[in-house]
């Protein structure tokens, strides 16, 4: 499936990875997602992560490039379709349905949510992986992967990325290009392997959270894109929490063209937000930004900086 000749990353085989064919141990369906450890499915997952992040970046750029967004979106859809055919997608979504977010992740993720729900802040129920603006999904991943609530959540820019992040290991790419392809790939490989192990060791939750972002992001964003798999059973808690979120955020038009349903920022607001928060703030409404400011402040207090 993947092109030949690429060092380490791709397996030549065009076979679809079948769980039973893997030399791994036979496990229950809940953990089956983890045992698809063939390099192909890892690479595919990494590609999916990378693509989703790129879409977020698309969303945040001053001038979202529609062609690029569409191409990346099509790639994601292709991966999702394949994962659906594999049965991997089903397994993942089942695992996610049963997942429960560990409490220690809640604070960090609350910070990242668009809503400032006081109840949520108290840590009632998991609602970390909002798809409202893919940036939330991304930042949630960051929090999850770091596994460290107290680590400072850097809101102002996406570029400085922890090397521990699976998906983030690809961010180095767009921002720093060098001719040393082999080295970059090796690094990515190592990071990836470490990450996948870390994922597994952190417990199912870490993995599932990570996957949640992808699945929900994928579904919500790509909505009616010929996705063949059935939608996962909606989590009533999540539904309730998202009930007052403006559904137009899910509109692909919004994502792809960077337009907002109710633009609230004027030009001077834009300039302010650029200086204070960097490009990420461009896609937020002004009310959100003030919320994020507050949350920033609260985080600082909690972290005790």
């Amino acid at each position, binding site marked *: *499936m*993947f*092109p*030949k*000749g*690429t060092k380490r*990353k*791709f397996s030549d085989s065009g076979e679809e990875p079948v769980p039973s064919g893997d030399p791994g141990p036979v496990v229950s369906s809940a953990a089956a997602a983890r045992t698809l450890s063939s390099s192909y499915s890892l*690479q*595919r997952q990494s*590609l999916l992560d*990378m693509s989703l992040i*790129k879409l977020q970046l698309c969303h945040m750029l*001053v*001038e979202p*490039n*529609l*062609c*690029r967004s*569409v*191409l990346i*979106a*099509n*790639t994601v*859809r*292709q*991966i999702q379709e394949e994962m659906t055919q594999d049965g991997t997608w089903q397994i993942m979504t089942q695992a996610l349905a049963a997942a429960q977010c560990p409490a220690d992740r809640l604070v960090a993720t609350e910070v990242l949510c668009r809503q400032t729900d006081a109840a949520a802040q108290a840590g009632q129920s998991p609602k970390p992986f909002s798809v409202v603006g893919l940036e939330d999904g991304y930042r949630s991943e960051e929090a999850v992967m770091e596994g460290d609530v107290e680590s400072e959540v850097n809101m102002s820019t996406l570029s400085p990325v922890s090397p521990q992040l699976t998906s983030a290991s*690809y961010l180095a*790419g*767009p921002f720093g*290009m060098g*001719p*040393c*392809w*082999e080295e*970059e*790939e090796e690094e990515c490989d190592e990071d990836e392997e470490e990450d996948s192990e870390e994922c597994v060791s952190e417990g199912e939750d870490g993995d599932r959270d990570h996957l949640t972002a992808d699945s929900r992001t994928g579904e919500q964003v*790509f*909505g*009616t*894109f010929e996705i063949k798999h059935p939608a996962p059973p909606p989590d009533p808690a999540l539904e309730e929490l998202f009930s007052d979120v403006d559904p137009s955020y899910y*509109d*692909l*038009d919004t994502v*792809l*063209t*960077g*337009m*907002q349903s109710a*633009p609230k*920022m*004027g*030009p001077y*607001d*834009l300039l302010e937000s650029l200086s204070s928060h960097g490009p990420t703030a*461009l896609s937020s409404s002004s009310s959100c930004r003030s919320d994020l400011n507050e949350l920033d402040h609260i985080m600082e207090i909690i972290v005790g900086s």
Partner: protein
Amino acid sequence: MKCFSRYLPYLFRPPSTILSSTCHTEADIISTVEFNSSGELLATGDKGGRVVVFQREQESKSQPQRRGEYNVYSTFQSHEPEFDYLKSLEIEEKINKIKWLPQQNAAYFLLSTNDKTVKLWKISERDKRPEGYNLKDEDGRIRDPSTITSLRVPVLQPMDLMVEATARRIFSNAHTYHINSISVNSDLQTFISTDDLRVNLWNLEITDRSFNIVDIKPANMEELTEVITSAEFHPQQCHTFAYSSSKGSIRLCDMRQAALCDKHCKYFEEPEDPSTRSFFSEIISSISDVKFSHNGRYLMTRDYLTVKVWDLQMENKPLETYQVHDYLRGKLCSLYENDCIFDKFECVWNGSDSVIMTGSYNNFFRMFDRNTKRDVTLEASRENSKPRAILKPRKVCVGGKRRKDEISVDSLDFSKKILHTTWHPHENIIAVAATNNLYIFQDKVN
């Protein structure tokens, strides 16, 4: 027309100067280059919204060896950065495309466009000025009528040549998405501007109205899977134009069929090769440029790894396929990671449609001779451009032992990309834009 194609590798020699801006900023990055229809003028547009026009020196009899070189003729600010208040987005001033109109009088006309607005510029010379006014003196101050005792007739006196550019038409507010191409019709009365989802037809005289002739926007934007990447009018048939898509297809449309040309009259697409299929197949099949041949019989398309020549009479597969940098096929994941896979390379025909040229990375550009099937890789760089010396062909080593002059794939500099090139309409003179530098190469004088 010289029998240029016999001389392979192409014996281009660099000029004595390489035209570049003295300090390199982001705004100096050249974003488009275009010769006019006579080849006398060469226009470049940059990211800062400026247009620089070069004019070829007249060949002097005293120095026949020194073929006409290009010098700066006019510089003007075509577009300024704007802000879209409704969407809270900046509109870049970067010039995406320049197209010349054929010359009809002493002045030169060109169309330049950024993401949203097309402008028609008139470039004219002034080498005389009237002197001897009665009512005002040479400084322009009004004279006191009571001091005028006699009348004189103003006379045109020669002055230093002044080249001025004025915006004659501004075609705005017709595009929701980013304009990627413009094309002047052979009727010289209309032109099309194309964005990601629509093609609009304008009359050069009318700026407040345009006709939408292609619209591929789906009712539900979530269903969007394909965008328009480029469009061009047929060079002779004023009713025919072609547009390319991000899925690797080209549609030829006839404006006589219907007002809205959503139904194509020809559809060019090569079936996918299942053996090379990957997750990146679609991205690398996205066409970044489409160009009709000068004779109007062929179409050339550029996708990420290849250039294809299509016969307009054959829709199911291209006539010829040329590999530009196939060694990148194994690097697609890395190129996707750093976004290079989305780079939009242009392609260009020579005057006789026998040779095609396109850019690559590491400041390399490639030429393919359609008749002899030979190709060459050349480099646009200062180090390799000794004046009057012939450009040395370059070679990329794909594997195994690297020879002395070869460069390995891993050493390629992907930040040095040649996206924009243009070929003189009659002669073997090419202009190549390498980031902020413009290289003009002429072929060897025999």
